[in-house]
């Protein structure tokens, strides 16, 4: 039986539990969209895993009212949320599958609660996006401001006054009824904070302490997490495998769900 506190955590993060199996596989979305990103992959594991999907606060169907700018200024707070969800679900030795910035959030969560996750799947990870002496993350500080400008110009699918109206999508019924752009619907102020927390993060120092077994899934042509960054993560982690996907871009979970599924299956 769930306690009131844990059920409120699960509601706050719109946690969706499906499938059945001894082990749990938790999927975490990255910067940009919500848990929908993982559905094409997660559904492949429902037969032999309990699957868990969730939204970070301010994303998707989460409860943005629980958000505070002060608290979420670094990835630590996001990792705390992952641990809180894991505790509410009483996870032990589970698999954490994190896309993009969530790969590092998962690594931080595994440091905070070592018993919770014994396997980490890191899709397009980067411990630091901005270039540094002897390190090429691929970004410059000025470029982050351009990204913030884009976010200010585009409130994708977001309107503070948006009524909970639902529109049908007769062309693609598999989507059910969701609002235009709602997958990437994020409170603009929260998107800004998350962009800062993500792109200004530097967690290179944490990689060496990760005890969980890790799989680094690297896309072939990813401008956000370039191949050399994936290789860096692989070499800095004590126990990791590296796999270069044929998939290009930054979202293989959407563009090549089958390839990602196979890679995860072979790892676990």
């Amino acid at each position, binding site marked *: 039986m769930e306690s009131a506190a844990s*059920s409120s955590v699960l509601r706050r993060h719109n946690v969706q539990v499906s499938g059945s199996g001894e082990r749990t596989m938790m999927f975490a979305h990255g910067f940009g*969209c919500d848990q929908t990103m993982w559905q094409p992959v997660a559904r492949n594991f429902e037969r032999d895993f309990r699957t868990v999907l969730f939204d970070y606060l301010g994303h998707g169907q989460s409860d943005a009212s629980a958000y505070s700018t002060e608290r979420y200024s670094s990835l630590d707070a996001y990792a705390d949320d992952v641990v809180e969800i894991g505790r509410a679900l009483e996870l032990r030795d589970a698999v954490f599958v994190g896309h993009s910035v969530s790969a590092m959030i998962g690594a931080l969560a595994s440091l905070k609660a070592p018993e919770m996750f014994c396997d980490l799947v890191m899709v397009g990870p980067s411990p630091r996006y901005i270039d540094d002496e002897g390190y090429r993350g691929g970004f410059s500080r000025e*470029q982050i401001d*351009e*990204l913030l400008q*884009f976010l200010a*110009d585009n409130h994708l699918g977001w309107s503070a006054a948006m009524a909970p109206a639902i529109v049908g999508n007769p062309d693609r019924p598999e989507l059910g009824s969701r609002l*235009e*752009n709602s997958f990437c619907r994020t409170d603009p102020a929260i998107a800004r904070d998350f962009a800062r927390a993500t792109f200004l993060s530097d967690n290179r120092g944490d990689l060496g302490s990760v005890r969980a077994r890790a799989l680094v899934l690297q896309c072939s042509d990813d401008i956000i997490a370039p191949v050399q960054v994936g290789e860096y993560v692989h070499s800095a982690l004590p126990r990791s495998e590296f796999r270069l996907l044929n998939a290009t871009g930054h979202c293989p979970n959407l*563009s090549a769900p089958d390839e990602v599924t196979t890679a995860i299956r072979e790892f676990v």
Partner: protein
Amino acid sequence: MSDPSPTEDLEDLYETAPCGYVSISPAGIIVKANRTIAEWLGRPAGELVGTPVHEILGFGGKIAFETHLAPLLRMQGHVHEIALELITAEGEKVPTIANAAEKREADGSHRFTRLTLFRAVDRRKYERTLLDARAKAEAETKVQREAALLREQFIAVLGHDLRNPLAALAAGVRLLGRKEKLSERGLTILEEMNGSLARASVLVDDLLDLARGSLGGGFAIDRSNAPLTPILKQVVAEMRSIAPERTIGASIEVEDPVYCDRGRIGQLASNLLANAISHGARDGPITFEAATTGNLFILSVANAGAPIPEKVMERLFQPFFRGAIRPSRNGLGLGLYIASEVAKAHDGRIDVTSDRKETRFTFAMPRSEPVTPKVE
């Protein structure tokens, strides 16, 4: 006679349309682009084919393309009205508004993505001006809110600190009256001082109520089911003694229980009566009615006199508002404001009707304990 309709040349429409066309492979490589966009970018159209789309996007657009647009395109097949910045061969930015749609194979797999772009230089400038103006307004509002908060805190502290010297004065006046031998004249002065002290205390209480109300603490109310009738009778009696020259007719038919803060409801009744006494026609009667019907407690106060002008009506319940028709002899203009705050705190409201016949303030609130949803 009409001109033969000119036929549209589709090839030319594509190439020189008043918007940019770009088609991108699933790997993000430009496979076709029209002349319009090539001209915007200052590059030959042929040169664009084969280059990654990232090369013509500003940095923000590049990241957003990966983190937002590509996923949205995969999930919903299209994205509309995205503000994208292009980068020309010279490195200059061209603001555009873009629509994008995925062209898919019969099996649903991704063939390519079509982007249609419109130049939006002025529009973007306008939008950013709006954004800047909003940011500025928000900053100013914040400063003002902080100043208002300080002011209200000052009022709260002032009101609170005034109470002690007032209490000391009252104690002194009491002692003088009881223990000292005073002349006839001295006794009259003392009585006047007492009256002034009482008025000053009411003003300070009102100030404290205002400060509590606007500092967000709301009116502290302490509800119970204790009988309300005695309090109402007491209020009417007090007002009759304060204004003996006025006729105050009272009808009180209250069936207990009424779940309320009796002191506060008494204050509301007193404020409404005081308002009727100050603003009603000198020679007209005032009626006070309190009754329970169904689940409602209703209290109304009516007076004769000129109707309240519409402009005044709008601001009646605002703090520090005093009809302005004639300078009030006393009070800060807080009576009706406090009455309406008391009403709100009881999940009730005050309605006003005013015509040539009478002006009537009617307060109504639910009688019973509100059923609050269980909190987990």
